[in-house]
């Protein structure tokens, strides 16, 4: 069986029911997606499958045969980070970093579809992802800043902002 990962076609030997996450991490050594829960509940394993964010721990490999899979390994090219990666650094949106890969891929899909800097929309797009360190505000700030097309000074971090969720200012 074949899948394309970050533009490179790879042969997979795992059985048809093996979750894509397991194939990526254990067979192909693509390590950015993490095994946070392996039951769909946390979002650390999210990758893009034909451009759509998907939990790789829930996807049987046979169901994505021939698909284009994108992971964090495929974001930066030639040492140049994507705006959302830069936004993450500048806005201090990662602490332990374990959730970061999943969030970045979900945010990448959101921005590629023209997502706005509206916090409620961002929250809906990232709603499947858990972060235990940051408290989310800096993550929303990062995605919003990337959506506005800001450029980022990586030698410093942005001042924090306030955000509103479900009408409540945090």
């Amino acid at each position: 069986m074949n899948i394309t990962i970050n533009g490179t076609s790879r042969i997979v030997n795992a059985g048809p029911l093996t979750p894509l996450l397991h194939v990526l991490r254990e067979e192909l050594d693509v390590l950015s997606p993490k095994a946070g829960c392996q039951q769909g509940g946390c979002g650390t394993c999210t990758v893009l499958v034909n451009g759509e964010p998907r939990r790789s721990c829930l996807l049987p490999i046979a169901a994505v045969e021939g698909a284009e899979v994108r992971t964090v390994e495929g974001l930066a090219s030639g040492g140049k980070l994507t705006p959302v990666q830069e936004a993450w650094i500048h806005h201090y949106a990662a602490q332990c970093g374990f959730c970061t890969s999943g969030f970045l891929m979900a945010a990448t899909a959101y921005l590629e579809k023209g997502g706005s800097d509206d916090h409620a929309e961002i929250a809906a797009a990232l709603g499947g992802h858990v972060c235990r360190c940051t408290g989310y505000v800096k993550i929303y700030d990062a995605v919003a800043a990337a959506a506005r097309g800001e450029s980022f000074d990586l030698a410093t971090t942005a001042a924090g902002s306030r955000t509103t969720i479900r009408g409540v200012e945090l």
Partner: protein
Amino acid sequence: MEDPAVLIPTSVAEAIESFGAGGDIAIIGGGTILVPEIRLGHARPSRALMLHGAGLAGISREGTRTTIGAMTPLSALSSLGEPIAAAVSNIADLEIRGQGTVGGNLCAQNTDAPRGDLQGVLIALGATVRSVGAGGERSEPAETFLPGRADRLVLDVSFDAPAAGAYAYLDRAHTHEYTALAVTAVRTADGTIRLGANGAGPHGLRLPSAEAAAADPSAAGVAALADVQLFDDAIASAWYREKTLPVLVRRALEQLKETA
């Protein structure tokens, strides 16, 4: 250690043949429930039937009748109007909705948490479920299909466009949380009011006593308690469900009135 034998049919006919009369065979729709259960060893089927290539996805319309293929992802349902749109946007998050299917939602076993949110919605819509299995093909109302769903292969569900629909649910802080309790109210084209509930029994249930009292939303809410089998789970206690069911019935009916 034996991995299950995996069948990957490439047509509806092949899927029906592979399923045969069912038995020890796990149907994999989107896999959002079953894949982790198999991986963790909670389910150890000897055979698995993967439907992703069987041609069971898609929504079609004929007159007022809408038919949804079993493999249609939940995300495709958001354009179907109320009450389906509201119910679907409350299921999990956008990634799971892109993968989870209508068939999987209808057939979800609510063992540790209510996780077939469309069941009560389809009951309220008076939907017909077309399935195969022992005894061949069968078309039946969702509420009669649900109790025996374990050994059937669902092909599609269909319903007539309602005049109006409303969905009331216990809102929770995070998008992932399963819905503890939800009530769907539908006014059919001929003006009949139908009510379905989720999280109030082993699967979605119809609320006939509440329907009979529907003219008075508050009375209907109290009447609904006669139609359900409330339970405790990690998400909510039976006590809490008992207190909130009448409220949700009332809200769904009031919402329905507003969309007169």
